[in-house]
């Protein structure tokens, strides 16, 4: 944190004095607002959380020791990452075809799909979570159809890992679709026509041309959904079982119910570090620079 702070200071200070060096200092000056925003909105708060985690209530690393000695925290952390990965993969599998159709069709189908995604996006996630309680509930349509068909005792849908995952996928799917769509829309349709004219069958032109060009969207949407999902906890609480508990539920509990801000900060730091490690590994294999196409 300190390194970044001091790094930004000369940038801001160097601009004023030397008129001769104006050519060099102007780009730095232009960077100053962004640097300031980053420092104020991200570096300082995260630094404060880091500080709290080793100073509240007293200067020690006891919080970190507790996180790694009580099995609860590592277990829930692990579950948080596997759940987020599952949700991300499910969103990708469901979202890719939708985004593809939205891109390739230019008639009313595309508009209707975009409207559906947008309406979903604008509806509060608590509302959508409660909607699943009704849809999958004892008096809901799924169990109703199951019973009407006489398929025996109703399956247990609600309050399972399945319903919890389903709820999260539903909430995060619009993010994935919009991330994919924004990239796919920029792919020049002439490239596909060119592929066809050179004898590629639709499958081949999709595999060789469209899919590689759409990968930035996959990377982008994947990271977006994965990181948002890491912070989820209300949906698993309402739709899942205690075994589906996410780490932010524990952070929230420590802050809201126990006023243990130091410990909550330590858990948050561990989550942040673990996320960074995952993204670093991801970058090593897939390259985050694909984000920018």
């Amino acid at each position: 944190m300190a390194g970044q702070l001091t790094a930004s200071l000369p940038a801001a200070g160097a601009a004023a004095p030397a008129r001769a060096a104006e050519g060099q200092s102007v780009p730095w000056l232009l960077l100053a607002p962004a640097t300031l925003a980053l420092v104020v909105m991200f570096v300082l708060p995260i630094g404060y959380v880091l500080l709290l985690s080793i100073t509240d209530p007293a200067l020690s690393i006891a919080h970190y020791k507790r996180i790694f000695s009580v099995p609860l925290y590592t277990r829930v952390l692990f579950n948080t990452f596997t759940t987020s990965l599952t949700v991300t993969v499910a969103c990708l599998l469901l979202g890719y075809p939708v985004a593809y159709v939205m891109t390739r069709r230019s008639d009313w189908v595309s508009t209707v799909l975009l409207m559906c995604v947008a309406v979903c996006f604008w509806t509060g996630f608590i509302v959508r979570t409660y909607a699943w309680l009704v849809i999958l509930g004892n008096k809901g349509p799924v169990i109703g159809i199951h019973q009407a068909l006489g398929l025996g005792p109703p399956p247990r849908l609600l309050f399972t890992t399945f319903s919890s995952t389903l709820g999260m996928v539903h909430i995060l799917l619009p993010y994935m679709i919009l991330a994919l769509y924004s990239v796919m829309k920029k792919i020049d349709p002439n490239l596909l026509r060119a592929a066809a004219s050179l004898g590629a069958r639709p499958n081949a032109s999709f595999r060789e041309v469209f899919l590689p060009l759409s990968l930035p969207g996959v990377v982008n949407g994947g990271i977006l959904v994965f990181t948002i999902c890491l912070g989820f906890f209300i949906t698993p609480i309402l739709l899942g079982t205690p075994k589906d508990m996410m780490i932010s539920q524990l952070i929230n509990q420590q802050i809201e119910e126990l006023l243990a801000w130091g410990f909550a900060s330590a858990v948050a730091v561990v989550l942040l570090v673990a996320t960074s490690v995952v993204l670093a590994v991801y970058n090593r294999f897939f390259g985050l620079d694909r984000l920018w196409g």
Partner: protein
Amino acid sequence: MARSRSTIFDRRRLLKTGGAALAGATLGPLLVTERTVAQTRTIYVNTWGGSWTAAEEAAFFKPFTDATGIRVRTVAPVSYAKLKAQVQSGSYEWDITAINQAEWLRAEREGLVEPIDWTVVQKDKLFPDAVFANGISYCALGTNLAYRKDKFPNGGPQSWADFWDVKKFPGTRSLYNNAPRSAIFALLADGVPRDKIYPLDLDRAFKKLDQIKPHIKVWWTQGNQSQQLIRDGEIDMMAMWNARASELAAQGLPVELVWNGATVGITMWGVAKGAPNRKLAWEFIQFAVQPKPQAEFCNRLYYGPTNPKAYEFVKPEIAKQMPTFPDNAKVTVPTNVEWEATNVAKLQERFTQWLAS
């Protein structure tokens, strides 16, 4: 000389007021300062929203404003963490909050609580046991066994031992995701008499909880979630806040409330340490704990009045549904606040780990 002094003074004042105006313009909607208080006489109350705030509006806020001219603004929902955040940062969104006694005691131990201003609050206007840890007792909240009568035509569970008896009382079950409450219910089910519950024998409690765990379909966390579960027929019997169950019964749902073995906790009125409107806040709290306002609140939301004289104004058919009603108080377990405030962090961790495994 005098002239120059006054111009300097004026210039300073100009700078001051200008600065204050600028600060007020940018931060105004967010911050309550001593300055704005003196002008408007408004207090800010942290509240739950929904039917809770509606009942408070009718029972406390409107009558108080009518009587004193002091306006009441509400901020929802109740946030225990915000009490700490406000006191640490020195910027206040509200003056008054209402949280349970154990939380209040922990807040007091952390120095987040404004001492009672005895120049405002008059001791002879309070009732016995009204004051605790610099808070004043507001109402009593029960966590009861509740069940759907239509699912048990031959009589439903009448105790936590019955709740644990899955053979005699088959049906879907739900418990409150709250460590002390769940441990107490387990100990009662295991035959511990209600006056010997504290200090909680946790090993015994968790052993008993192990038996019921596979049969608990949901561990609920939010009041309206618990209502939805029983309303939709998802759950046949559960631990539930008494007024939440009474509310469903009043809507015509076949929900029965069992007082035997219910836990009862007291909610406290209190003022955040250093809150800008503290004097007015104590005036409000003293007003709100008088018999009539307490009764008005409890007539709307069936949490029990803590001021015994309030029962003079509570409708008899409602009085029977209150945690502090004498017949009910005989069979319930009052919270041992000292024990809970001291042990809740460790207990909650053990409980959460037990739930997740």
